[in-house]
């Protein structure tokens, strides 16, 4: 479905990606992880056609992105960014339905979809008339997810969707996201910097470093069969809260 083929991308003189190839599995969740500036967000922006590669090709359904009508392409992909990217001048309802109304959907159809999505992402219906500034961070992300899913796209792209949330809300949303991904069977590509989240949500984890893929596999592959000292270092840099507790006392 999505194919990134030997893509190189520069921002000015800064090389964000270097000859990267990746084929996210259809209807599965692929998680991109790595340190800041490793090029993971660039991958999402290439897929949805916000930027074009300097070398190599990105394809969707075997057609290069530039050959697609950009609007058709984007209507088939949902995109959620860290702060939700909600438009502050529109209510939650209007944020979610903006595109559908613009495309001329009938009111009844919009309402039906809105209700279904509200149930899916666990957003209380009385929040729909609030403006983004009146919603909590978690609620904003739920609305952002509803907006991305409104047209029932084939692909869902999420760029650190939970990055700005506090841990309890984050855990809640992680669980909800996993349910949604599993029930909808969408091709999901998600960026995070949290290894636990990657392991919890991802069918496949892609660890990136300096614009290249360092290792791809399951969480177990990365932990048990680290391909390089960097992978090992990256995994051990993620501190578990439990390791700070002296467990030897009880033994």
């Amino acid at each position, binding site marked *: 479905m999505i194919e990134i083929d030997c893509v190189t991308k520069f921002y000015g003189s800064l090389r964000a990606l270097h000859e990267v190839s990746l084929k996210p599995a259809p209807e599965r969740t692929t998680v991109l992880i790595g340190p800041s500036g490793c090029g993971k967000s660039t991958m999402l922006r290439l897929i949805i056609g916000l930027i074009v590669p300097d070398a190599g090709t990105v394809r969707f359904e075997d057609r290069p992105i530039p050959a697609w009508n950009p609007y058709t392409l984007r209507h088939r992909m949902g995109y959620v960014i860290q702060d939700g*990217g909600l438009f502050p001048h529109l209510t939650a309802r209007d944020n979610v339905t903006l*595109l559908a109304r613009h495309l001329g959907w009938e009111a009844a159809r919009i309402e039906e979809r809105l209700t279904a999505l509200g149930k899916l992402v666990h957003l209380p219906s009385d929040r729909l008339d609030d403006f983004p*500034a009146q919603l909590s961070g978690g609620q904003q992300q739920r609305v952002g997810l509803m907006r991305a899913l409104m047209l029932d796209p084939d692909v869902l792209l999420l760029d650190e969707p939970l990055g700005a949330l506090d841990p309890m809300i984050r855990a809640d949303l992680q669980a909800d996201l996993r349910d949604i991904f599993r029930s909808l069977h969408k091709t999901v590509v998600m960026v995070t910097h949290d290894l636990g989240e990657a392991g919890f949500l991802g069918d496949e984890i892609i660890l990136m470093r300096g614009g290249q893929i360092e290792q791809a596999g399951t969480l177990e592959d990365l932990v048990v069969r680290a391909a390089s000292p960097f992978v090992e270092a990256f995994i051990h840099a993620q501190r578990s809260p439990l390791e700070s507790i002296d467990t030897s006392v009880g033994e």
Partner: protein
Amino acid sequence: MNPRRYIAFLLACLFPLMAVAQRAISVGSKSFTENVILAEMATLVGREAGYEVIHRDQLGGTRILWNALLSGEIDVYPEYTGTLLQEILVGHRVRADALADTLASFGIKMTAPLGFNNTYAVGMREARAEALHIRTISDLRQHPELKFGFSNEFMDRGDGWPSLRDDYGLPQRDVRGIDHDLGYRGLVAGSIDALDLYSTDAEIAYYHLRALIDDRHHFPDYHAVFLYRADLADRAPAWVAALRRLSGAISNEAMVRMNARAKIEKVPENEIAADFLNTAFDRDVNITVSRTTRLSRFRHHTREHLYLVGISLLAAVLIALPLGIVAAKFRRTGQIILGITGVIYTIPSLALLVFMIPLLGIGGPPALVALFLYSLLPIVRNTHTGLHDISPALIESAEALGLTPWARLIHIELPLASRSILGGIKTSAVINAGTATLGALIGAGGYGQPILTGIRLDDVGLILEGAVPAALLALVLQLLFELSERWLVPRGLRIAPGD
């Protein structure tokens, strides 16, 4: 709104700008009292002769009146032979007896002199002149420390300050241009020692001034005449005949008295003109004029002022908003647009108004265009800033959503920039409300008209009659725009996070 309808709407709104004033017979006058009284006389005899005559009063200085006469925007105005020889026709080297022939080559005719000679003079306060033993202009040579304040017109006319200085060898260095009517106050306050006088000025007696003797006969005669367009003899023959009957009818004393009634007794010029016509000529039915009330003047000026501010602002919004959008979308073009509107904004408002006269004549249209040009920068700049300051994450979200650029602009970008854009329009409106008072200088009317007349007549009440409503209008506009934020700025943008 689709682009074609937008352009049609735009043209419809600009149409009033292009419509030139209707062709009625009109009299013009310069912005000083004697000229206004004479123009009132011309107006009254024209009406008496059965014509519909408009008096476009206090249009400005000689150049503006002369050009308006040549272009046919006015048909008649009072002028002085000295001004014709020394200023208007100064490059033509005309002899006094060939004046009528030279004027005819411009399609202009003049009546015989009206009787009085209003030549220039240099005046000082009687007491100060006496103390310094100054009787003649030559005596000024002994006092290089004296400060002169001459009317702006006098500063650069053929027989004005430069040639007066050269003729008499005057040593004074502190010489500044000042409005003639303000000059009297400067003289009384002691901030200047001498000014240029008209010999029929009412103030000479009122302020106890001494008109210095022109011992080298520098100043030519300034006989008052009416200038009129040659074609007027066909269009309004009875009026031309009536104007000609005024020749020789006004003595120096009569003119000084009329000036004094206007400036010191504050009698309206049209009443003075009617009284003179009624007493100087035998007539069956006296000419009567009605006094305008403060309220009717206020209504009239409000209408004119709102027209100036409203139309210019509307046109500015329709043009500046798209310009601001273009400026935000295309960086290089944007810099050019912001540069040009910025340069226009730095032109002094008075200069901009005067630049418009050769292009659009006098009256409403040039004032509208000048105000329009002034209004552009705040709106363009705020539109540009408002769009430019939208967070890149929101722009990217809108793009990734699959909205077309037009839909993004309408549904996302303009609403997000609305507060800034509205602020720009508010700035333009408030500035316009004040700047429009200058429109009176080129015959556009509005609240500037009573201010102009008030300065001329030294009448603070009249000045306030224009200044107070202009200031109030600015405040009201400010308030209206702040209220309109409730409707025009989306509610979501007015909610602080955490509410």
